[in-house]
């Protein structure tokens, strides 16, 4: 987090007791006074929805065991979100993009969440250390 960070929010998603909807509500409340564009707000909500859903569904054999840290902070030009979880190792940056279908018969409904995150993010970094995944997504405030 740089010295220019203006404000931050720390949350934990507990797979047993509280879910993505609570996180979304808290983030909305936090971002409300900061004058983000509608596009930026949409992008933040999309990243939260896609990454948390993906982690809960695929990162844990039992989603109730999930503990996902969400750290959100504001820089002058970006909103940054860092996710930390102790689920299965997963680096989205090495996942190939899905093959988009040309016909309904070819369409496979899954695999689009990462594509959407890549579309709205200004930057994405991933690390795994100490048995935890660390994903940081930047979203332009001027989007």
């Amino acid at each position: 987090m740089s010295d220019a960070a203006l404000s931050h929010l720390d949350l934990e998603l507990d797979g047993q007791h509280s879910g993505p909807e609570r996180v979304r509500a808290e983030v909305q409340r936090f971002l409300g006074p900061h004058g983000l564009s509608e596009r930026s707000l949409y992008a933040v909500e999309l990243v939260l929805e896609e990454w948390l859903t993906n982690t809960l569904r695929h990162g844990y054999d039992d989603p109730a065991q999930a503990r996902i840290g969400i750290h959100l902070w504001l820089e002058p030009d970006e909103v940054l979100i860092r996710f930390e979880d102790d689920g299965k190792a997963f680096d989205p940056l090495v996942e190939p993009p899905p093959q988009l279908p040309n016909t309904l018969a070819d369409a496979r409904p899954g695999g689009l969440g990462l594509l959407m995150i890549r579309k709205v993010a200004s930057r994405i970094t991933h690390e795994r250390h100490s048995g935890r995944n660390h994903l940081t997504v930047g979203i332009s405030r001027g989007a």
Partner: protein
Amino acid sequence: MQLTTAEAGPSAVCLIVAGRLDTPGVDEIEVRFTQAARGSGKHVLVDLQNVSFVSSMGVRMLISTARALHAAQRRMVLFAPQPLVREMLDTVALDQIIPVASDQPAALGLLEG
């Protein structure tokens, strides 16, 4: 999420969706949406003007329903998505497999064309 159904001519029904097509929204509406589409026996228009948010789960629901209709020789056309929703649909090139129109008359035109 809200779902209402309206007739859209002799060969189509219009499913009017309102709210967020995110994970909880899709969980709430998917069974009713699919039943309304498949049970109509007609082509299906989907009115998106009051859908404020679509995630990959929402796209998945639309694709799954469109595939079921396609198997029954029926079509789905989406119309009037809000600008940011349209951007998300374009990101996944959804209009390559499910037509997206600006309004209901244009959507009906795509069905009849």
